């Protein structure tokens, strides 16, 4: 049980995907214009990550080593299609604002990375715990980035406060792509300072 807990919690801080192992930057930079988008993207990726980790782990003895990446992609793509259909059905506005980045979860480095680095060597339960931890860590990072960019860049925090505006003249720069790079860079620097032992 302690190992399972550790597999779960390592993704939340020690190996938190974006800030520590710096993977999956494409959706991170592109969709974090608001907290809502970040949370939606993070949860969608978490669902895919947990399911694909579990299935890859369950099939790890059947998948031939030579074509394993192709097999992983098929598995991941299956779950991404599920997520895409669910989001179109139940969260239509969110799926519209995330756009192409939902189908692009297929090529998200974190998901393929966990399949390759963890699920193919470990049992199903451990892989599920790892996927859940990594997914929630990814979600956490996206939410932090999305909150900063929405609060300072648009002056709102739509998920909690509706239309309320906090800043009369927000820094629209943070809503643009360069603002995403600058914010992420500063957060990475901050994480290095915080994590220094």
């Amino acid at each position, binding site marked *: 049980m302690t190992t399972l807990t550790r597999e779960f919690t390592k993704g939340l801080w020690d190996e938190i995907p974006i800030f520590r192992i710096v993977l999956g930057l494409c959706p991170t930079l592109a969709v974090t214009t608001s907290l809502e988008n970040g949370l939606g993207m993070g949860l969608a990726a978490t669902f895919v990550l947990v399911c694909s980790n579990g299935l890859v782990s369950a099939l790890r003895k059947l998948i031939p080593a030579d074509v394993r990446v192709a097999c992983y992609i098929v598995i991941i793509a299956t779950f991404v299609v599920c997520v895409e259909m669910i989001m179109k059905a139940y969260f239509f506005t969110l799926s519209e604002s995330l756009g192409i980045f939902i189908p692009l979860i297929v090529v998200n480095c974190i998901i393929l990375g966990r399949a390759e680095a963890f699920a193919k060597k470990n049992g199903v339960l451990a892989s599920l715990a790892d996927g859940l931890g990594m997914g929630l860590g990814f979600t956490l990072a996206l939410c932090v980035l999305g909150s900063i960019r929405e609060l300072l860049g648009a002056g709102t925090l739509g998920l909690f406060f509706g239309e309320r505006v906090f800043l009369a003249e927000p820094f629209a*720069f943070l809503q643009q792509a*360069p603002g995403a790079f600058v914010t992420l860079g500063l957060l990475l620097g901050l994480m290095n300072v915080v994590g220094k032992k």
Partner: protein
Amino acid sequence: MSQELDTAPASDTDQAKAPRIVVAPSPHLSEGSFTTRRMMLDVLVALSPPVAVSIWVFGWYAVVQLGICVISCLVAEAAFIAWRGRAFTLGDGSAAVTGVILALSLPWSTPWYVGFIASFVAIGIGKVVFGGLGQNLFNPAMVGRAFVMICFPAALGAAAYVLPGSPLSIVTQATPLTALKQGLVESSDVLSLLIGNTNGSLGETSAIACLLGGLYLCLRRTASWEIPAGTILSVAVISGAGYLISGSSFLHPLHHILGGALLFGAFFIATDPVSSPLTVKGKWFFGLGLGAIVMLLRLASGYPEGLMFAVLLMNAVTPLINRFTIPDPVGGPVPQRN
């Protein structure tokens, strides 16, 4: 080097008498007075004609803007350096230069907080995060200005320059390049572009003042003359070709060279020794590319002037230019190791 020789251990007398051979990379002789502080003071001296003209043309607006930006830059530098626990660097004058250039690149009407934020972004994001002076990829003043330009488009757009009915008659008309965008070709005569009694960003209006300061910088070798020469050449060729082909519907090349921020940017912003190429050939590439991008943005983008973005773009390719223009040492190129 000499220090090392002086403090050489003299325990073994024979060895102390024998000539010591010290191996060190070049340059072996360097001008001791050529310090950062001297260069920055040179830039401040060179900036005095544009500063004087901006105060003459825009009055208190220029004084206030300069005060806000210089003080904010100095405070930002002190704060960030203290935060990082580095040695005190205000004395080298680079923060003051950033402040003056930033202030002179803003419109007269900029609200105080815009200059304040631009200064902190310039010093913080533009310089200190890269490791301080000498490490920055981009010109700090232009990073700060680009930030506020995107954040507060109303405060820095073409409309911010114009205030109809203002007691300051200069600012009741559009800037020369905005007039070009609106199709009013030949709005201002060449003489006023030279003297500087036109509308525009604080420091850019007078071509003569920019040329005076720029020539001083080049003669003192604080700035490399190849960069402004390349920039002006490139703008002259492109606008001259356009003028020859399209005729009177095209702005005269002299307007393109003397108007807008071109001369100010070519002499004071693009020549920043940190963010421009190191080699002579590279400096020509830098200047020619800068002028070409300025013309592209002036003619084909929504902005009336493109100097700021052109400088930032050329800063981004500076490491590449440096790599491509490594000069051959004496004795031929270094053989490639297999």
